[in-house]
């Protein structure tokens, strides 16, 4: 079984899910006050970014030069 395809598929699909969850969470919590909520928003934004990066890695757009499998 070509594990690489499995891994890449999970990465591609999962990262979309992660991105959507993060963006929805950001949208819902956008107006909450307090410093912990501001920090959460930053972290959710970075999580969304992580989703994008992982998606691009999964479909072999990123990661061709520094590392590849």
């Amino acid at each position, binding site marked *: 079984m070509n*594990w690489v395809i499995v891994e890449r598929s*999970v990465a591609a699909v999962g990262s979309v899910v*992660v991105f959507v969850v993060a963006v929805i969470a950001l949208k819902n919590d956008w107006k909450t006050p307090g*410093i912990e909520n501001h920090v959460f928003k930053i972290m959710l934004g970075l999580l969304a970014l992580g989703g994008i990066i992982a998606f691009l890695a999964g479909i072999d757009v990123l990661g061709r030069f520094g*590392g590849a499998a």
Partner: protein
Amino acid sequence: MAVTTVPHAGVHDDGPDQLYVETRELRLQGFLLFLVSDVVLFSSFIFAYLYLRNTGNVWPPPGINRLDVAFAAFNSMVLFGSGCTMHYALENWKHNNFVKYAWCMIATIVLGAMFLGGQGYEYTTLYFRDHVSWGGSGIFGASFFTLTGMHGFHVAVGVVYLTVLLLQSLAGTYTKDKFFGLTAGTLYWHFVDVIWVVLFSIFYLI
């Protein structure tokens, strides 16, 4: 005495929970500053890795295979997924859904442990199949294992921490209004997630 009106810096309404509100503020600030110092710790090692890699020529160095991007992307999903379940855990707690909260916490803990398992798989593959070791593979092994190892240690601590929080919440330590430990745990877990975004990018994608 001839004084101006008292400005309201630091003065709040009376109330039995005033002590909790103020104490929570202190703990929150302290915890956030601790996270800042942890960011500095990782940043220092990330600087060292980028500095050393910049003075070299070829990457990976001769004789060392490239890292497995596909697997790491998969493992990243596990960790990012746990970030999502952690977010929902806290949301459910705030909305008083204890059962959903508990399942989300369990999912987070399990996914976190799975991520560690994945790292273990990566490490053993690197060591046994590719002969890359911490001390014997130049700055490649040094930087990779040190940084991902530090991160893995933080994940492991987080898994333990979240388990303790779950057990505490089952024992009734937290209420609908007083749950700072859960907030802190969520902050910590997201922090670990975000660090991984950076590490994944700089080790696997460049």
